[in-house]
């Protein structure tokens, strides 16, 4: 299906072009949205495709963020190695949480992942001498450069964010269209039947959760590297709920839904918080409208009604 790839490459091209007509302020915001979209794509692999409703993804984001920033600081690493460490950190954390939490399913899984994430958040505060606790810490300049480009400046930061986003997006398209992607969906749709087709639900779900953790870790590391700061606020429950909102809004189980959801939610919060301090009211209203009129999210609805080939 060539049009699937064409659509995704077109989005990447449009995003690349966006930096030429957006103001520096909005360019930075778009870089932020793309990094958050990578996080949401990871969440979508677990929730949208495999059907695991996690409330603990902030832990994977934070694992990536702190693996990258603490180790980069300790060993004086550049952005590239720091990102790799972050990805590994997110994946390892997902593997260890998954080994325990995947003994449960459904609501219990949600509670257990939430519990692990809270424990992670409290651990970051407890080891405040190293992690900077609530205050966090800025990343050294050395960690914020790659191939001689300073990632604290607008253009290199935008290009770095876009590169990561594009890679994550294209990998996710290939993944969900692969046989393993089909197996992930089978877990979501009918776990018992999948078992009777020879699949071990535990290992399939664990693999999907680890993939999800790798994405989350990449996003956490990239956020710290590109915006120069690591802090405990990224490990709070808020960052477990945000990717869920992005995915629900954009469309769970669609490859472009996470980006669309992140973009719209970011814009909504940005606009609403300019009007009132009660901006969460608007977020809530948007979610109620979503549940009432498009429970499958924007792209989920579009796929169901009009564009059936959307992956």
């Amino acid at each position: 299906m060539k049009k699937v790839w064409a659509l995704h490459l077109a989005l990447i091209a449009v995003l690349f072009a966006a930096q030429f007509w957006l103001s520096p302020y909005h360019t930075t915001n778009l870089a932020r949205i793309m990094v958050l979209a990578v996080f949401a794509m990871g969440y979508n692999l677990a929730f949208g495709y495999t059907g695991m409703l996690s409330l603990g993804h902030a832990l994977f984001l934070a694992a990536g963020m702190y693996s990258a920033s603490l180790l980069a600081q300790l060993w004086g690493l550049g952005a590239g190695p720091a990102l790799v460490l972050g990805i590994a950190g997110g994946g390892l954390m997902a593997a260890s949480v998954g080994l325990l939490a995947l003994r449960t399913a459904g609501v219990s899984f949600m509670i257990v992942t939430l519990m692990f994430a809270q424990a992670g958040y409290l651990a970051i505060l407890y080891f405040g001498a190293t992690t900077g606790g609530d205050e966090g810490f800025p990343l050294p300049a050395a960690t914020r450069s790659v191939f001689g480009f300073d990632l604290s400046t607008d253009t290199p930061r935008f290009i770095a964010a876009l590169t990561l986003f594009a890679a994550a997006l294209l990998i996710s398209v290939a993944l969900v269209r692969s046989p393993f992607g089909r197996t992930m969906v089978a877990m979501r749709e009918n776990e018992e039947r999948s078992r009777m087709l020879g699949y071990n639900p535990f290992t399939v779900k664990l693999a999907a959760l680890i993939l999800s953790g790798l994405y989350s870790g990449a996003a956490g590391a990239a956020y710290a590297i590109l915006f120069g700061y690591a802090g405990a606020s990224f490990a709070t429950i808020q960052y477990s709920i945000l990717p869920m909102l992005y995915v629900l809004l954009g469309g769970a189980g669609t490859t472009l839904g996470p980006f669309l959801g992140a973009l719209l939610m970011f814009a909504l919060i940005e606009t609403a918080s300019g009007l009132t301090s009660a901006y969460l009211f608007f977020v809530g209203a948007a979610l109620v409208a979503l549940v009432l009129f498009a429970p499958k999210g924007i792209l989920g609805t579009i796929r169901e009604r009009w564009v059936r080939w959307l992956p």
Partner: protein
Amino acid sequence: MAPLIETPLIETRNLTLHFGGLKAVDGVTFTLNQGEIHALIGPNGAGKTTFVSLLSGRRMPQSGTILLGGEDITFLPAHVRVRKGIAYTFQITSIFPRLSVFDNVALAVQSGGTKDLPTRTRAALARVGLDGLEDQEAQTLSYGHQRLLEVAMGLALNPRVLILDEPTQGLAASEIDRFTALVESLAPQTTILLIEHNMEVVMDVASRITVLNFGAVLATGTPAEIRANPLVQEAYLGA
């Protein structure tokens, strides 16, 4: 037609599972021979589905053993048994309703390897006559077609034993004929264990029949032997 040399493929010895006071499966010793079509019959609640659940690993027995080709598989998890060649098709149709017909069968095919996946998937669909419906969402199929899809998924696993749990339930007469022909065409490459209420189908396709009653084996034999057995007539055929 019974195979000349009878090699046991599945054997159970004293297989038992009680639910409290209910003896669902009570000391069943049973042999399924390589290449045969073996029907499992008995009144409602005789323990047929529970018995095949023990064979497929959906339930674990309290005592007794299950051998597959001589290997003890009594406590292996269900997905491992599927990989070893025991395929189970559900009594109540259990497909992936929101996935396409193609994806449903592809999931079964790719479970054994992803080589030539599209070709093998289409071949499995053609075998049950569902070719041409690949892109349709499975839940939009007619009930008869959903049953066939269920069987296609079992077949696509390329099993040594295919357990069919009431496959003709709810099918129209014409569909039943077609289905009977399909089942007959599978043996002796695939060994079939068939739970079936439709006596015509049973007498038609089965090479051997085992009758369960109150969780225990009442009789085993050829269709003619079973028909002539006074115990069976009393307990089950009611004649």
